[in-house]
């Protein structure tokens, strides 16, 4: 390992590594650049220039029009995503706590079965979920969609928290029990304060999953309660009139911004939380 003070020698292999990394970064950035450039172009500009050309006039028209079309759906997505993320993370934390620190007879089997949930494709749960929502009277409602996302996300959040908590020594819980703390007091005062990294992982993961979801959104929500992903699809796929690529691109950027924001704000915890579980677990 090099100490931070001494600089690594500039060798050919190092240059090669950096070159490859740079190319990879550029490749990944190209779509974003194209989207951003196009979103600020006028329709004439788009039809005359090429994809990567700089806009001749920087125009916000596309953004204004896109926001006017999708803003209602943007708030729908917030109303779906925020509660679903919070509820699934909270229940996952509690599940993980029980499955790692308060093992009961059959808890390993229970955990194993729960893990199956991680491998279930969305499509397989569509019919049962739709049936259940119908019975509960939640069909085509935002609450119904939240419920589906919470249930589907639980397998992941439980897995995250359980794997994080098994690396916490049992002695902590024993010490707290001798100090007189009960099940929830230990969870609230000892375990939760230690959980910041894994909570962040869970929030990012769940936020990305639920915000980007299209299938559940298109199946379980209708009309004005649809999430932004569905609205974006409807916008882009309209067959009437000329294609307004600047509006499409601006709308796609609006749909993608919240996840980008979450990664920027909480991203450093993401890697930290994942490795913490991986190394010790």
């Amino acid at each position, binding site marked *: 390992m090099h100490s931070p003070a001494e600089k690594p020698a500039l060798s050919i292999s190092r240059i090669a590594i950096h070159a490859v990394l740079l190319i990879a970064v550029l490749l990944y950035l190209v779509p974003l650049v194209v989207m951003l450039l196009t979103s600020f172009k006028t329709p004439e500009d788009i039809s005359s220039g090429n994809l990567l050309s700089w806009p001749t006039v920087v125009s916000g028209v596309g953004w204004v029009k896109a926001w006017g079309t999708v803003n209602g759906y943007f708030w729908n997505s917030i109303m779906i995503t925020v509660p679903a993320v919070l509820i699934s993370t909270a229940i996952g934390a509690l599940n993980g706590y029980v499955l790692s620190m308060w093992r009961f007879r059959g808890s390993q089997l229970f955990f194993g079965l729960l893990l199956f949930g991680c491998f279930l494709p969305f499509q397989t749960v569509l019919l049962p979920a739709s049936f259940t929502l119908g019975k509960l009277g939640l069909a085509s409602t935002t609450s119904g969609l939240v419920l589906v996302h919470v249930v589907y996300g639980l397998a992941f959040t439980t897995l995250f928290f359980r794997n994080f908590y098994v690396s916490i*020594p049992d002695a902590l819980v024993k010490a707290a029990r*001798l100090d007189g703390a009960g099940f929830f007091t230990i969870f609230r*005062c000892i375990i939760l*304060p*230690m959980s910041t990294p894994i909570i962040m992982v869970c929030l990012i993961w769940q936020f990305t999953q639920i915000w980007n979801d299209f299938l559940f959104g298109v199946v379980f929500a209708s009309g004005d309660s649809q999430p932004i992903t569905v609205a974006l699809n409807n916008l882009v796929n309209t067959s009437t009139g000329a294609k307004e690529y600047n509006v499409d691109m601006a709308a796609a950027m609006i749909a993608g911004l919240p996840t980008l924001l979450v990664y920027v704000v909480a991203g450093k915890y993401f890697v930290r939380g994942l490795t913490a579980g991986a190394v010790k677990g």
Partner: protein
Amino acid sequence: MATLELRNVNKTYGSGLPDTLKDIQLSIKDGEFLILVGPSGCGKSTLMNCIAGLEQITGGAILIDEQDVSGMSPKDRDIAMVFQSYALYPTMSVRENIEFGLKIRKMPQAAIDEEVARVAKLLQIEHLLSRKPAQLSGGQQQRVAMGRALARRPKIYLFDEPLSNLDAKLRVEMRTEMKLMHQRLKTTTVYVTHDQIEAMTLGDKVAVMKDGIIQQFGTPQQIYNDPANQFVASFIGSPPMNFIPVRLARQDGRLLALLDSGQARCELPLGVAGAELDGREIILGIRPEQIALGTGEGNGLPGIRADVQVTEPTGPDLLVFVTLNQTKVCCRLAPDVACKVGDSLNLQFDPARVLLFDAASGERLSLDTANASVKDNVTHFKSR
């Protein structure tokens, strides 16, 4: 302040599985310091968890102050425990760690502050109160863990190998400190260790455990001088007791153990016994410090001449290894004894301090040497 009694305590993790604890029976008086000692996997930590209430016993009863607490949850037993890993709450400061148990017990804040101040002063951790556990050294963490236990003023303290994560020097310091602390506070204490020196130095009573069974329960002196079996004898004492296989011979109603160093032979008179022991193989136990230099001519002790094979000067002692009956035997001699590998030494033993063990079972064989002359021709072998 409390007495602790274990009545036939049993613990098993499921029918068909071997018992983790088997008929554990012991009791200690108010203020006594009990050591549970044994190799890893002997059940000593399980027993401690059972006393704490962290694990349920499957048979018998645990009594604190003559009250059966077997069915009680840990918080109702009024017990405090110090863990090997210290188990300090990592997100709380030292002060919060010590306060936690008191807050849960709804002690008024003024009383809590007073208690934290008392404990911090006692353990000299006043300057650490606002730090987080990760910012403390191992020794400091250990003190905080003790502080957390002391603050509650429980009936019984449980210590689960509290010193084993410390380096050698600190361990010796903390050992003395724990003893001082116990002399001052006089709280009933149960202390688990695999370190026989801690067992000997700290305990009022020692219970040596193996395979979930208490091998012997007594004072450190009893354990050291009068071990119940070969396991206890080998576990306590450093360097460990020598075990020499010997053949017995009987002469005029007295038993003799035959020793052979390769260059000399010696007959160790053991006492009186019946003819049935004649020719039998047993194990002779001699502690290294009970082998002395000397020809035995002045004091009449039996002696033997043997070649030195290895010497290990430890500083205060010189450990010399010789071979008797094809077994490596350690002798603990004064450091100024001049000897080197290849020399021959005259060694002598006191037959009265030699212990005898059954070769097959390892059980102690007791021989009535004191009354040998009176009870001549009577069998005095008894299996303990």
